[in-house]
């Protein structure tokens, strides 16, 4: 049964490929093709979910060998990256659950997204995301998981910016993506450290080797993966990205931030249980950060007025609690909590659009009276603890100022030496400007204007290339190209003339006589 595992991510990947090519080549567009697109997406994601269930069933029945190796992706000296998958333990369990949730979300989206302008694009990204998340969950090594991790992050970016013509969506998508890069960087450092300390990037080997690592080494690796997990699961201080991520269509919010992707961080920590057990510091960090996030998000959720934001705040509370449980060593509880929460929150987010029907005659319960009277807390919660502005103040603005200074350095020193890129010099942003330039005095030879550089290096390149061009033109092309032909023709003509003389009868007779004379 192990070989089944490869089909679980590949089926949605194939669908994504088909849909992507279809969109690129304009095979699929418009309303009449909607059923085809949704059919492909639904069929593959459902099949993948069923396969994941089968794999999970086989694991329960003890039919799996534990891993499935497909070969080597990259090998250099002792460093080897295999393409392998796990077929036992938490991986298949979570894969089965995610598969079902994704299939439900896809089915839900077919009606929800009907007649949307980006219908086909939406299903392309959703199938790609399904493939990525299954790859993430099932991969047997850190690099494979990272590949899924990255592609899932990219899909999240693409769906937040689903309505990319709205500035708010574009800004939020970029902010989310940039925040996620912090976690990605930590993940990569984690991979590097695992290879350096444990000489393996295989999850299973890493876990078995964890006992031999020194506490310092284990803490280093665990810290990196924990930071990656914190970012992906939106723990403090990264929580604000989750609230910005709700720009996408509701089904995608349900899949990404309600049920599936936001749990990837918790999953990663659960997967590395033996490693975390080795490091008291990492465990403590999990507990503290998880608890802090839970309290933060709870207070935040109390003041939210729209259904999606409050649900997402509740998600943060629960993921925070999961990390807290992990930190306390209650791994079993955390993984059950994860599974249960995926289902509940997925349902709630999908049901959010019909909230009005559900709250009718069923009013929202008022907040606890002690909390309700605390006006300061109310302001703090309303301002989301000023976390976003604090990050802006501490990181975004100083970096902005730094880049401003560097820009100055670039403009006045580097560009003088190396030259500025051509578009900056001759950028034409409108047709009017283009016409203006055309009418203007640029009547000299165009080819000389073309290869232009600025700055010292640019000018140098310009002069040398002009020199080389003259050389090429004079010697290579005309020199022994054209001139050789002319010379050859001239030689040929004189040879012809010579031949014509030689063949005249008097010379022939003369030659014969000479030959006879020599012979005798």
């Amino acid at each position, binding site marked *: 049964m192990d070989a089944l595992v490869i089909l679980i991510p590949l089926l949605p990947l194939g669908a994504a490929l088909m849909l992507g090519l279809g969109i690129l080549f304009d095979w699929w567009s418009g309303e009449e093709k909607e059923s085809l697109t949704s059919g492909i997406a639904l069929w593959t994601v459902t099949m993948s979910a069923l396969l994941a269930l089968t794999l999970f069933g086989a694991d329960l029945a003890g039919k799996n060998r534990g891993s499935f190796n497909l070969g080597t992706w990259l090998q250099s000296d002792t460093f080897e990256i295999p393409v392998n998958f796990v077929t036992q333990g938490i991986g298949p369990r979570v894969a089965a659950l995610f598969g079902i949730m994704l299939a439900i979300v896809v089915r839900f989206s077919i009606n929800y997204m009907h007649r949307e302008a980006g219908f086909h694009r939406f299903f392309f990204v959703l199938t790609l995301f399904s493939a990525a998340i299954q790859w993430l969950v099932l991969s047997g090594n850190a690099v494979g998981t990272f590949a899924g991790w990255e592609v899932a992050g990219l899909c999240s970016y693409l769906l937040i910016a689903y309505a990319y013509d709205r500035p708010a969506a574009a800004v939020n998508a970029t902010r989310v993506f940039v925040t996620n890069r912090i976690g990605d960087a930590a993940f990569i450092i984690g991979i590097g450290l695992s290879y350096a300390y444990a000489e393996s990037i295989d999850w299973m080997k890493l876990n078995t080797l964890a006992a031999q690592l020194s506490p310092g080494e284990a803490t280093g690796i665990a810290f990196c993966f924990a930071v990656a997990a914190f970012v992906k699961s939106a723990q403090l201080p990264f929580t604000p990205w989750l609230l910005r991520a709700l720009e996408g269509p509701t089904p995608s919010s349900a899949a990404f931030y309600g049920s599936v992707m936001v749990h990837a961080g918790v999953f990663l920590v659960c997967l590395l249980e033996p490693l975390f057990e080795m490091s008291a510091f990492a465990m403590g960090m999990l507990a503290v950060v998880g608890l802090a996030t839970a309290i933060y998000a709870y207070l935040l959720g109390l003041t939210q007025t729209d259904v999606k934001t409050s649900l997402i705040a509740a998600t943060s509370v629960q993921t925070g609690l999961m990390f807290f449980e992990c930190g306390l060593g209650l791994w079993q509880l955390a993984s059950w909590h994860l599974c249960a929460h995926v289902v509940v929150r997925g349902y709630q987010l999908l049901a959010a659009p019909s909230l009005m029907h559900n709250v009718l005659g069923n009013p929202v319960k008022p907040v606890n009276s002690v909390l309700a009277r605390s006006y300061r807390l109310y302001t703090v919660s309303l301002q989301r603890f000023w976390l976003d502005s604090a990050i802006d103040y501490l990181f975004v603005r100083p970096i902005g100022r730094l880049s401003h200074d560097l820009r100055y350095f670039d403009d006045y020193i580097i560009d003088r030496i190396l030259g500025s890129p051509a578009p900056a010099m001759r950028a034409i942003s409108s047709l009017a400007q283009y016409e203006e330039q055309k009418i203007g005095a640029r009547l000299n030879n165009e080819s000389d204007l073309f290869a232009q550089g600025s700055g010292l290096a640019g000018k140098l390149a310009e002069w040398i290339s*002009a020199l080389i061009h003259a050389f090429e033109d004079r010697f290579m092309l005309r020199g022994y*190209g054209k001139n050789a032909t002319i010379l050859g023709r001239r030689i040929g003509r004189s040879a012809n003339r010579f031949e014509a003389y030689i063949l005249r009868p008097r010379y022939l007779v003369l030659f014969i006589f000479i030959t006879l004379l020599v012979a005798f």
Partner: protein
Amino acid sequence: MGILSILLWTPAVGALLLAITSGQHAASIRWIAHTFSLLTLAIACRLLFQFDANQSQLQFSEFFILNPDVGSAYSLGVDGVSMPMVFMAALLSFCALLISHTIKNGIKGYYFCLLLLEFGMLGVFLAQDWALFYVFWEVTLIPLFFLIGHWGGSRRHAASLNFVLYTMGGSIFMLISLLAISQYDLESGGSLMASLSQSTYSMSRTEQLLILLGLIIGFGVKMPIFPLHGWLPLAHVEAPSPVSILLSGILLKMGAYGLLRAIAMLPQAAQFFQPALVILALIAMIYGGLLAWRQTDLKAMVAYSSISHMGIVLLGIASLNETGMTGAVLQMTAHGFIAAAMFLLVGLLYERTHTRNIQDYSSLVQVTPRFALFTTLTLFAAMGLPGTVGFVAELHALAGGFQQWGGWMALFSLGILLSASYAIRTVGLLFTGPVKAKMQHVADLTGPEMLTAGILVGGIVILGVMPQPLIALSEATITHLYTLVSP
């Protein structure tokens, strides 16, 4: 008859069949040519699957004596160096035929020449006997002369004549060298590549040097090595685009392939010429790059970039170490894909707009998104962006060169920088900028064109992400070559 003979003669049979078909039936002519090139490609695929990459020796060898007096033999075989080239020759010929539908006049002769050219190219890479090699080397000239001279652009006559004269001039030096070596091999009888490398041990050093010099000139014209490249810009620009694909995709590699074989045969002389070759390689890289940067004609730009990229191959060969030679062989394949894709796309663009001046283009991404995707990927591969096959090849060549000469490889980086500058500029000028009314009605790629571009660009990306099979294909043979040339 072994698989190599079948592979070799399939296009020749196709050409013969075309010769007896009536020139009036355009459809049947195209059908025959496509069928036979597809058949050749299928056989090449089969060969690829049967090929055992772990062996360094010749495989699927075929041998029988042609002329006992001279000792020439019909000897075929493939090893890890020729295998990728054989496959590329079959693949690119197929691609070139696929986009030949724009040729409207004299199609019988055109397809005949193209199949004959494929026959010659396959022969060069399969031949294991220098005499046979030379014959096939010259066979490729005849169809090319007509292809450029008859179906080319406005200066086609000058271009075809120039091309043939240059190559013939180089071939004379090559022939003299080959005759000189075979003098030493009369007792063992033959001009086999394998046995000749044995006989070179009995030669004096000066003789070896002169022989290798002759071979370097012969192969250097084709490759081209810096001062011998005069034919290339003209021929590449004037040839019809399917022929440009074959010219830069395969014909240039014939030179590099021959040079690699020659160096394996004459290791001592190779050590002597090593510094000169490296200097020429670095000059070619920068020279070609600067001139490519200066061209307003798109096809001329691609042609000069070919000189720059073949400089990388020469550098890899001249490094005379395993990494460098791997880089050279990889770059031969990589450049085969990249140059073919570039000429294909530029040719298709020219057909639609009838201008090759890059300054006439603007903001094409709005009207031709597919074209933009393929072109951008190809140009990125040309500048060696990670994730494309160009990166893998350039990295190997760079590492090989660095092992040998260290800091001098800064000049290599300069070459890469230049290629990045013209590639990015081309992307910018073609696809961005103000909307020009004239460029608003350019049609996007059609089905067959997309298939062809998809094969080539797909190859670039897939081999860039998973280079391992490609590296493994020639690994054993290169290790064997290295043991021959290492001092």
